[in-house]
């Protein structure tokens, strides 16, 4: 019998070599299809940063000229999420586009009810990509599910000629081209790419904060080779997304045993079987975080995850469960660190779980900032203003 030398886990280092990747680089096939006239590739703009993916391939993350593919859940129920993304872009003076020529990816409905099909899903995706390309911007996807789904759609369109033919025909009827982006990029990758610039402009000390991170399933489990990893974060054994951003802000990111579990969203469950969503979210995520870490906040990067982890805690409290962890998106944390208003920009009044203890811990006078927001609402109610402007949000 051969006895291999035993190495302590902490001494083991995994060298990532893209040449050893178990999957091919999809971009090579994508550009080949373009050469053959099958489709057109939307190039990542020149102003980009490269981040490493799971198997070592470098992924281009655009910094500006971004077309913001908004999220149903974020815009509908937690609008401070997307507002914070826009606010960050504005703070850095970046050229971004907030389109009205955009539909949902419709994947939430597809995963929930199956009342669609691959042709429809691919056509919706390509229609949105084409809308971005027509105005000269690059799609930046806000929702974790849209991101995962679009990666799947791109994979299918590259590998399935028949699907490509059908979608191309549909696009022709709409007067559009069959276009696919060189990279499918999630907004949290943009935040990660911007982390050092954000940290340079940080005005709120967060070094006394402990956070847990929930990586969104559809971010790192669908087409896993396209998620961002970093040797310095968990030894590149799990995605660096969100964690890398929080560490740059000086936050202590604490580990917990159920990090891989989903949030409980379940797509159809959050809408029509919420007993599952509530129970899973509280018992497998929030209570575990509370018992093992007791964090000041938990941070994630997807529509469904913020909603489920946050809203489910109300029922948990009614059943004397160990709950009470505020839930935010990384974009909100980054904006907050740079001094964004907790209500005018982060719009924390749309969240459910009490986040005031967290805000007070980082030195924010909660009554004062709530009063400032209420003053803006009063102006709208009285007709003095039609709506709150970006300038109002920064005053």
């Amino acid at each position, binding site marked *: 019998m051969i006895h291999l030398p035993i190495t302590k886990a902490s001494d083991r280092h995994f060298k990532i070599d893209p040449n050893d990747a178990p999957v091919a680089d999809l971009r090579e096939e994508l550009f080949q299809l373009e050469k053959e006239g099958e489709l057109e590739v939307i190039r990542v703009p020149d102003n980009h940063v490269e981040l490493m993916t799971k198997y070592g391939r470098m992924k281009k993350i655009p910094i500006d000229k971004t077309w913001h593919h908004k999220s149903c859940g974020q815009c509908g129920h937690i609008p401070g999420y997307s507002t914070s993304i826009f606010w960050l872009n504005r703070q850095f003076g970046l050229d971004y586009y907030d389109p009205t020529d955009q539909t949902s990816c419709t994947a939430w409905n597809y995963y929930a009810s*199956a009342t669609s099909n691959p042709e429809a899903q691919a056509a919706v995706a390509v229609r949105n990509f084409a809308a971005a390309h027509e105005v000269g911007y690059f799609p930046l996807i806000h929702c974790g599910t849209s991101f995962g789904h679009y990666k799947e759609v791109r994979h299918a369109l590259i*590998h399935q000629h028949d699907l490509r033919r059908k979608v191309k025909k549909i696009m022709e009827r709409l007067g559009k081209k069959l276009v696919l982006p060189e990279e499918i990029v999630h907004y949290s990758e943009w935040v990660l790419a911007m982390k050092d610039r954000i940290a340079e402009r940080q005005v709120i000390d967060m070094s006394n904060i402990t956070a847990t991170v929930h990586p969104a399933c559809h971010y790192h489990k669908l087409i896993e080779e396209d998620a961002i990893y970093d040797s310095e974060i968990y030894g590149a054994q799990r995605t660096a997304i969100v964690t890398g951003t929080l560490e740059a802000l000086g936050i202590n990111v604490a580990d917990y045993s159920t990090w891989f579990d989903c949030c409980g969203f379940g797509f159809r469950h959050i809408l029509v079987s919420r007993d599952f969503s509530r129970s899973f979210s509280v018992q497998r995520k929030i209570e575990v975080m509370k018992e093992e870490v007791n964090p000041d906040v938990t941070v994630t990067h997807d529509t469904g995850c913020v909603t489920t982890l946050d809203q489910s805690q109300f029922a948990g409290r009614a059943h004397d469960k160990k709950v009470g962890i505020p839930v935010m998106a990384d974009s909100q944390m980054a904006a907050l660190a740079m001094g964004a208003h907790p209500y005018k920009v982060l719009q924390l009044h749309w969240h459910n779980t009490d986040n005031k203890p967290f805000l007070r811990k980082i030195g924010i006078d909660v009554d004062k900032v709530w009063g400032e927001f209420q003053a803006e609402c009063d102006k709208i109610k009285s007709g003095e203003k039609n709506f709150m402007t970006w300038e109002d949000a920064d005053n």
Partner: protein
Amino acid sequence: MMALDLSQNKHTDVSFEEKERLFDEVKSDSRWDFVLNGCYECGICVAACPSARFYDFSPRVIAQAVAREDADLVYTLMSDSIWDCSQCFSCDRCPRQNSPGQIITIMREVAVKNGLQTAKKALEGYGRIIYKIMSTGSQVSPDMLQPDAFPDWGTHVYEIAENLEVWRKALPPETLHTTETGWKIDKKTIIELYLIWHMTGVMDLIEGVDEGLFMILVDVMEERLEEAGYDDITFD
């Protein structure tokens, strides 16, 4: 919790030929070759599965049933278990690169397309969501935040419902001042979405699973399509 009955005599009212026909439809899906490579029965998918913790549900059973080409069992699963899946794709960590979650996506689609009674039942109460996404282009909207819709989200929902109009205007991005959709969506964009639903057969699929909903959608879409100059929306 109801135990999952995997016995083969559960659906004796359905002929074996019909079960085989449905299974063949599952296997003929263009994604089929990418989602099943055999099964070690290692159970890694079950260990990672959130639904397996709360329901009598197993992604391993799904993978095994389809790998063994057991049309009876596949029909049983298609009539019940598949709707418990959370579609999180945690099961994608399968060492054989199976995707039980994707297999379920295909099975659900076949169940809906063929108007299985169990699919109709699974979608009960879900029609308003399908209506929203298909007719407006965004799945959830601020005006859904009403206490009767989300009683388990607590008093916070009352506060949002009471302040909805003002709070939406107190959002700096102008595209978010909407209440009936998540964001402002162009009329032209909605028309293009309607055309996609028609051209890809999704309207036919809805007709098969919920005729009432289909009629409402047709009413809404026809009017807008006609306004946009699409009198004839027949596509080859």
